[in-house]
């Protein structure tokens, strides 16, 4: 289980920024920008949590904190009772992270890259080879496993990224806007991986802008708005709270009800 208590993440700004409407972003206090502001959230083991929010809401920052890339400015994250910041190396063994922006080493082949990350995770050669074969079969990568990454399409790249995140068989998966920029077929095969992770009782945090993906995959939903958590429940709860049958409209109604709504 992941437990987040009063998580705040601030960044120092070079200068104050204005929105296009001329207003100062309420998350800016002096030269400090509050990317996350007092997030309390419990994520039980197993199942898919959909993390929703507009661009800049703080989803990626939250996922980066959970992946140990960033440290929270204040607050505590516990992973099965263990403080994330105290023993990040141990937590990293249990986490796999993929975002729409994570890249590949263009001059390496997919296999070389998977071998590299497997070795960094301390996997033995035989186990690693076996795992690569298993993942390439699951993700349908056999045809391009030995080709250089720089020659891949977006869909192929995303598959390799997912294989890289799954190479050490982590029990927590952080997927940040996984289907951004993918065509329908590629997005479908990538979503099948999320489905597979759920079936294998992995804990998945899945950030997305696509409400159909939320309907299709997420057991629970958390909505971030302007660095704060403004909804926690499930898709049915979103519909019930807003009285909207379409999830897009329910999402918009929830964030517009927030005091921190920023004119875009």
């Amino acid at each position, binding site marked *: 289980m992941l437990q987040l208590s009063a998580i705040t993440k601030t*960044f*120092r700004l070079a200068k104050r920024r204005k929105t296009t409407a001329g207003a100062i972003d309420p998350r800016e206090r002096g030269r400090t920008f509050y990317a996350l502001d007092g997030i309390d959230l419990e994520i039980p083991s197993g199942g898919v949590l959909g993390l929703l929010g507009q661009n800049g809401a703080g989803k990626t920052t939250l996922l*980066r904190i959970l*992946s*140990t*890339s*960033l*440290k929270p400015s204040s607050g505590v994250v516990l992973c099965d009772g263990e403080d994330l910041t105290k023993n990040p*190396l*141990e937590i*990293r*063994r249990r*986490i796999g*992270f993929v*975002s729409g*922006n*994570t*890249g*590949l*080493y*263009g*001059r*390496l082949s997919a296999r*070389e890259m998977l071998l*590299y*990350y497997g*070795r*960094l*995770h*301390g996997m033995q050669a035989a186990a690693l080879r076996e795992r690569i074969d298993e993942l390439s079969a699951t993700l349908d990568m056999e045809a391009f496993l030995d080709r250089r990454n720089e020659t891949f399409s977006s869909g192929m790249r995303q598959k390799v*990224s997912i294989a*890289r*995140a799954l190479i050490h068989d982590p029990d927590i998966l952080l997927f940040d806007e996984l289907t951004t920029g993918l065509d329908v077929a590629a997005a479908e095969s990538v979503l099948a991986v999320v489905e597979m992770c759920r079936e294998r009782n992995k804990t998945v945090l899945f950030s997305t802008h696509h409400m159909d993906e939320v309907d299709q995959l997420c057991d629970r939903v958390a909505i971030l708005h302007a660095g704060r958590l403004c909804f926690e429940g499930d898709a049915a709860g979103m519909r019930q709270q807003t009285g909207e049958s379409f999830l897009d409209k329910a999402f918009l109604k929830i964030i517009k009800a927030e005091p921190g709504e920023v004119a875009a």
Partner: protein
Amino acid sequence: MRGSVTTVFFKELRDILRDRKTLLLMIMLPIVVVPLLLNSLISFVMEQQKESETEVLEYVIFGEEHAPDLAKVFAETKRFKKTTIESQEELVTAIRSDEIDFGIVIPEKAASRLAEKSQATVELHYDNASSGSRVESRVEDVVDEYNEELTKARLIELGVTSSRKRRAVLEPVHLAEKGTGDIREVLGDNVGGMLPYFFIAFCFMGVVYPAIHLGAGEKERGTLETLLLAPIPRHQIVLGKFLAVFSGGIIAVLLNIASLGTWIAIKAGQLRGTLGTMIGSIGWLDLTLLALMLVPVAAMFASLLLSVSIYARNSPEASSLISPFGIVMIVPAVLAMLPGVELNWFWASIPITNISLAMKELVKGTMDYTMLLAIFGSSTLIAGLLLFFCTKWFNRETVLFRM
């Protein structure tokens, strides 16, 4: 720990060696360009020297009648060709337009001065702005020869007949110069400052591209974040990357030195005379010691440039941030080439300059090995401190996720 460091190191090395630009800068440049450059330089210098010595110089002479003997000497000098221009007023224009190489003007009073055995003045007009011109020395040789004959005649008239007496009159005290520097020292003094400059510059070039690729390049490609999620301490990632960048510098240096060594081995046999002897006096041991001195330099460059690169948001920003460092790094190497800058404890305390001067001393064969050890030790310490800084730098969120 060693496993993770070597995993990162070998992956990074494979990555950079698969890049054409890196191969070009690190491998092709020393193997192909250095010998070509040296060959062209030597050929150019020799060609220029040969041409300036054998070139036929066209000249005009005004006031020939005031010193006909001198005019005759000029006319009889090989590779001097007398020509004419309309008037003395056009002399400067004719020289500037390369119509003639020089002009001699013998004033009217020169005749009376020579007749009364006083000193006469003759004017030489030539293009002194041309650095490759040997007009002055060739004309001086002719005038010196004429002077010698005239002096001899005048001294005989004065009763100084024997050549020993003439020498005693002309030069009562003769200064006999006895240089103690052997050919190797002379070479070291002349080119010993140049070699480190080239080696340090090539070492820098060998480090630049890998540093950009493995620092800012990782951010740009979006692979840095995935690497940071590997369950290994960040200092091991830095160490692996450092070793790969450092190897880039070392490979460049070794290839340069090997290339230079091979070139020396071939050229020393081909070139005769002083130049051949000078080039041949550099041995493989000297080259090995030179290479050793460049190890801490490569380590300093690798640590510093990796720190700069990881700070940059992308490769173009890294390139523009690194460019000023190129100048800052090269200036101390240039200092070693300045006249009067010799290795002492003051210069030994200035990073890079001390390495350059030590390399110069190594070429000269006059190295104080206590000082060499001190320089090697202090440079290694600086490289270590820079690597430590790089590790700390790599742990900062504000550097890795710069907004």
